């Protein structure tokens, strides 16, 4: 019966003009925006297509889905079509579940249509890219360094960043091990460097760097002098043979010129195993995005079990926006807390309590803490950052997102069922 309600909900949505306009707008965006000139980078168009889908089209679809799901139940109650449903042998919680499932199906359908279209366009664009720029249509798995140290002289440390002077005065070294767990896996490896650079020779946006990759077990190494740019990471490719099952790789870096400096941390060099698998990675990103849709659908339907259509739409949008700005809310809460502590200490010393801050403590800090705790964290569903860097979305990320959605949706469903069960229809 839940499925019957869900299919009817989907059918209603599909026959609404709102959805037709939404699909039309989505297609228009996907056709027009790629025509806007991008930077000279060959992969800029591919990146643009990813951004268009995962930000613009997804936002457009979410807006439509919020609008439809937040108004569905209130409209049924207002039109009294709900009488026809509730006079039949169907439990009220199944009606709510059916509504949620119906809009989840709609979301899946929208994501499948636009996602497929976008992927086809990306594949076509990527087929014309030079090989060195095709990393964006690969799926890279990242490895952090197991060890990081500075050999020789450390010039100075500022804000957790160690600065190394050029001309072999100091050498930054990252060590990686256990990179190839499966010997049958023939993925190639690459090291990505995100270093900060400075030079006392005047302004320089590029400095020469000496980079060495050494396999401690096989006594093989590769050295290169590479230009490092301030605004862009650079990559050293190791190939499939460069990394073996028992390889322990030492990556050492120092500026060639004595007047140049590099600022480094343990996280600034990452190893990636590069495999074909863009389609799978893209599918994972779409699945994670679908979970985001699912969450907002559940929240919108939950609101609509009690609120009127306009209030329900507004509240769902507010939750959606706040869910994306959760970090700022947390930061604000923290800010008040810090300020509060500092300001409290002073009046205590002066034996003169600051009444305003005491009120702020109760009126703002606690509610903000609670809000940030209760609101859904939509930022965790951001899969675009992985795709733009060509990084494989770890299955754990998908799993955690799934678990989070299941838990949050379960709680919302429970609350909705209770509210709707107690509701009277006059």
């Amino acid at each position: 019966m839940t499925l019957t309600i869900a299919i009817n909900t989907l059918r209603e949505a599909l026959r609404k003009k709102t959805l037709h306009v939404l699909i039309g707008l989505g297609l228009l965006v996907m056709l027009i925006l790629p025509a806007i000139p991008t930077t000279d980078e060959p992969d800029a168009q591919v990146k643009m297509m990813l951004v268009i889908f995962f930000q613009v089209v997804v936002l457009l679809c979410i807006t439509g889905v919020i609008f439809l799901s937040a108004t569905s139940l209130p409209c049924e109650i207002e039109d009294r079509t709900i009488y026809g449903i509730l006079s039949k042998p169907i439990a009220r919680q199944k009606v709510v579940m059916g509504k949620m499932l119906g809009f989840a199906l709609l979301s899946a359908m929208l994501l499948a249509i636009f996602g497929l279209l976008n992927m086809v366009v990306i594949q076509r664009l990527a087929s014309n890219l030079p090989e060195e720029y095709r990393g964006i249509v690969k799926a890279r798995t990242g490895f952090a360094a197991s060890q990081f140290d500075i050999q020789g002289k450390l010039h100075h440390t500022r804000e957790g960043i160690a600065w190394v002077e050029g001309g072999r005065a100091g050498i930054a070294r990252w060590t990686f091990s256990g990179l190839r767990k499966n010997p049958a896996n023939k993925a190639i490896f690459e090291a990505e460097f995100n270093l900060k650079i400075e030079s006392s020779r005047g302004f320089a946006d590029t400095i020469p760097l000496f980079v060495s990759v050494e396999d401690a077990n096989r006594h093989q190494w590769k050295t290169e002098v590479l230009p490092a740019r301030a605004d862009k990471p650079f990559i050293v490719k190791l190939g499939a043979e460069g990394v073996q099952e028992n390889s322990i790789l030492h990556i050492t870096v120092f500026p060639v010129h004595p007047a140049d400096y590099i600022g480094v941390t343990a996280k600034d060099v990452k190893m990636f195993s590069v495999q074909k698998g863009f389609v799978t990675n893209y599918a994972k990103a779409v699945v994670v995005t679908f979970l985001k849709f699912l969450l907002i659908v559940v929240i919108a339907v939950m609101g609509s079990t009690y609120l009127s259509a306009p209030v329900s739409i507004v509240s769902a949008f507010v939750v959606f926006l706040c869910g994306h700005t959760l970090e700022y809310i947390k930061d604000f809460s923290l800010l008040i807390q810090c300020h509060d502590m500092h300001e409290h200490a002073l009046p205590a010393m002066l034996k003169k309590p600051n009444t305003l801050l005491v009120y702020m403590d109760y009126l703002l800090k606690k509610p903000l803490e609670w809000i940030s705790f209760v609101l859904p964290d939509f930022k965790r569903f951001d899969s675009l950052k992985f795709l733009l860097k060509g990084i494989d979305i770890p299955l754990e990320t998908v799993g955690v997102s799934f678990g989070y959605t299941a838990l949050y949706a379960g709680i919302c469903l429970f609350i909705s069922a209770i509210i709707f069960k107690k509701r009277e229809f006059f």
Partner: protein
Amino acid sequence: MNNYAVRTEGLTKVYRDFWRRKSSSALTNLNLTVERGEIFGLLGPNGSGKTTTVKLLLGLLFPTSGKSWLLGNPSSDLTVKRKIGFLPEESYLYKFLNAEEILDFYAKLFDIPKKERKRRVDSLIKDVGLIPYRKRPLSQYSKGMLRRIGLAQAIINDPELVILDEPTSGLDPIGSREMKDLILEFKRQGKTVVLCSHLLADVQDICDRIAILNKGVLQVMGGVKELLSQRDVIEFMVKNLSEIDIQAVKSFIEERNGDVVSINHPSSTLEELFVNIIQHHR
């Protein structure tokens, strides 16, 4: 208790405002019994509590106090709804669906198997005379057509108890007559019908028993014939009697101290006249 199709005991509904303060009493201490297989009329002016009673029976509203049973089960029992059909006051239907789709949708809510569903949908569309319009969205239906499809959805599950709220509202006299014939057919099939209406003529035509509500309070309940019969008045209906014979009968009655209240020709109802004319022209 199982002999009753509907039974209420002290059923009371008090509407409250946002602050839970009492705003009005919609129904007060209603004790009602509807026997199985009868056509029962629930009468009363607007705001008398008829629709509130139906909503309480169907679980759309919750009673402030009192209890109710449908077909021997508490009305809150979900399974009893499998045996109930309900036609609301207005045809509250999904206008984006067509006749076939809406009947199929409601049939699915009763878990009716696909094959049987198709058979019932086809049969009901035929019964309510909507075959030519079966694929047309309900948004393009007239009020009368919506009422017919509304009735079809109410009996899609072949219910034992049919609750009809103002069933003839929006129907023309022909449709109204067909609806009344259909209700009588339900009775012949052994179904119980609860009819809410303020059209007294309709109720008088078809109901076995009635209850009259006013301001949420039950005023009277009983058989239509018993409630309407005037025990001290006798009516003869005679055919082919001359004026002289009429005067003779009158004199005979007066000699035995009877009062002749009226002597006239019985008239047909306007509805009968209308139906006869329209059907003759068809």
